[in-house]
């Protein structure tokens, strides 16, 4: 995170509000906390990158606040709800909320949802080199560098595999999806062949080979960082 992202938290419960503020500030966000709907209604939503809104508030009802914010700005809104029915959530999503979190939630859960909401859209242009920790992929030259050094030449399948994984770094992809994306199904067979290609790809990546992680029960994932042993 280059600069501290500003988050507006609207939560009436003292203990929970204080905790969320602490958790998000620890994660590096700048949090403004409003404890009632009327105070929150005076805030300009456009001044924040994310709004976290409790649906049950004194003063203005959470959904009214959501409507007001939505009229003013497209800033992402995450709803906090303790209700286990669906009507409130459905209503909130219909009114333009982007995500919701039901209580109780873990601090880690909150941070994961917040960071997912704040993930900046990929502004990389088609053909720009992709840098993921030690690995840099140049899709135009069809060349891969590890720590700035050009790797032994990758086969078409190996490069396609790496590019496919690099499109969603950090996300696991199923073997079936990778076979479909990188292998010619008529000529090169199925998931066993895939494992052989991955194994060769890892070898060619040398030290960064570990970034191509095996995901149990699913397939493979390209990690954004090299796992520390």
């Amino acid at each position: 995170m280059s600069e501290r992202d500003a988050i507006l938290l609207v939560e009436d419960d003292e203990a929970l509000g204080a905790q969320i503020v602490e958790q998000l500030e620890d994660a590096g966000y700048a949090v403004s906390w409003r404890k009632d709907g009327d105070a929150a209604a005076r805030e300009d939503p456009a001044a924040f990158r994310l709004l976290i809104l409790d649906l049950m508030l004194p003063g203005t009802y959470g959904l009214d606040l959501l409507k007001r914010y939505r009229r003013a700005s497209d800033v992402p809104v995450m709803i906090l709800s303790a209700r286990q029915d669906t009507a409130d959530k459905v209503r909130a999503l219909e009114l333009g909320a982007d995500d919701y979190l039901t209580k109780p939630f873990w601090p880690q859960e909150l941070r994961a949802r917040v960071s997912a909401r704040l993930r900046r859209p990929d502004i990389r242009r088609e053909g720009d080199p992709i840098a993921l920790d030690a690995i840099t992929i140049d899709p135009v030259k069809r060349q891969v560098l590890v720590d700035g050094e050009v790797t032994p030449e990758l086969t078409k399948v190996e490069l396609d595999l790496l590019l496919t994984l690099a499109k969603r770094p950090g996300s696991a992809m199923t073997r079936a999806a990778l076979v479909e994306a990188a292998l010619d199904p008529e000529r090169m067979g199925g998931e066993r062949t895939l494992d052989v290609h991955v194994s060769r790809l890892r070898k060619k990546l040398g030290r960064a080979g570990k970034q191509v992680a095996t995901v149990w029960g699913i397939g493979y994932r390209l990690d954004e960082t090299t796992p520390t042993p």
Partner: protein
Amino acid sequence: MRASRGIRARFAWTRVLLVVPFAVFFSMAQTALRERVLAEGLAEGVRGRLSEGRLERCEAFPELWPGPGGRIRRRARRRPPRRVDRPGVERFFAYGADLVSANPEAPPFPEELRERLGAGEEASMLVDRPEGRQRLLAFRTADDGPCAVVLVEARAPRSGLLPALVPTLAVTLVVIAIAFFAAGPIVRRLRRLTADVRAARRGEAPLVPDARRDEIGELSRAFAEDRAALAARMEELEQRDAALTAYIANTTHDVMLPLTVLQGHLVALRARLGAQAGDARTVELALEESHYLASLVRNLSAAARLDAGLPETERRPVELGPLIERVAARHAPIAAQRDVELTHAAPSAAGTVRGDLTLLEQAVSNLVHNAVRYNEAGGHVAVLLETEDGAFTLTVVDDGPGVDDDALARMAQRRFRSDEARSRHPSGLGLGLAITNDVAERHGFALRFDRPAEGGLRARLTGPLVEGPG
């Protein structure tokens, strides 16, 4: 229609059953009485005729008396016209006290009549002869002598039971026919009442009671009152149910808030304790319990909603990709703490289903919760979404110890039943699984459990996708 025929037929049968035995009895009594009257009339008539010096002649010429063919020669005298109930005397015969006649033309004294007469004064009986029915009448005229007993043969009219019954039965049939048609309006009113009650039950029309002050009107008013009482009771129950649902929702809310704070504190505490093995373990156990507690409250809340039925209004398009991410994020902290690797994968365009957001999320969450909870350190749990041809397959697979065949079979059968879920499975495992099964069923999804070749357990939820929200 059946009912109306039934009631009329019953009316008719009741009459037949009551009237026919009575008519038969009445006719029999009537016939017997008539016989007696006729016999007495005959005896009286004969005695009268014999008193005019004829008996003296018999005493004188018993072998010739009363005349050729047993017939008394009638003198010209004024007689009243013959009455129907005084059948004509045909023949006379005289017998001695030993019942043997001096007249050779006289028939032997009938055996049965002899028994009936005995030592009495008079006896009569009916006999059927080829030439017709006859009444035999015997009476004593003297203690002894050749003409002590006179036997009279007289014509007797046919007077069976059936002819006597005919008029009675005819009247009965007419009465029954009248009753059958007279029941028409009653049957029609009953039929209309039945239709009204049914229409009211289907909610097509309110039940308007029959205003007439008779039994059917009373019945329809009773129905209307009953209906009103039932409606009031239903409304009361619905209000109570709504209040209870609201109470559960509020209580859940009240529990979830402090539980969130508690979890936050426990996580902070665990972080501060770092590598202090014993204390850290204690906090980790507390974290697991709190996680479990949250799951339990969520499941109880889901159970209450399933109990109440799923309102269509709460069904909306649900994106499966974010749903899986939310579920994975919910269980990731506990999985990490247990050293179970929890991973998930979904295609970038994961697909949308139509359903209840909270219940679907809880259904998947229960599968993941069980997979993590019953796995061992170093184990894996993968949540995998695949879509093909407008259908999705959501797989939760683990490499834990798995379950045996019996348990596998039971898992797919478990359904949520409030009584059982609370009493027999206090651990909440059964409740979670039952809710997942139930939610899948109510959404029209299929949930199957099996064991992959490598061991562990695999749950697969499959169902149709809908057009995404865009």
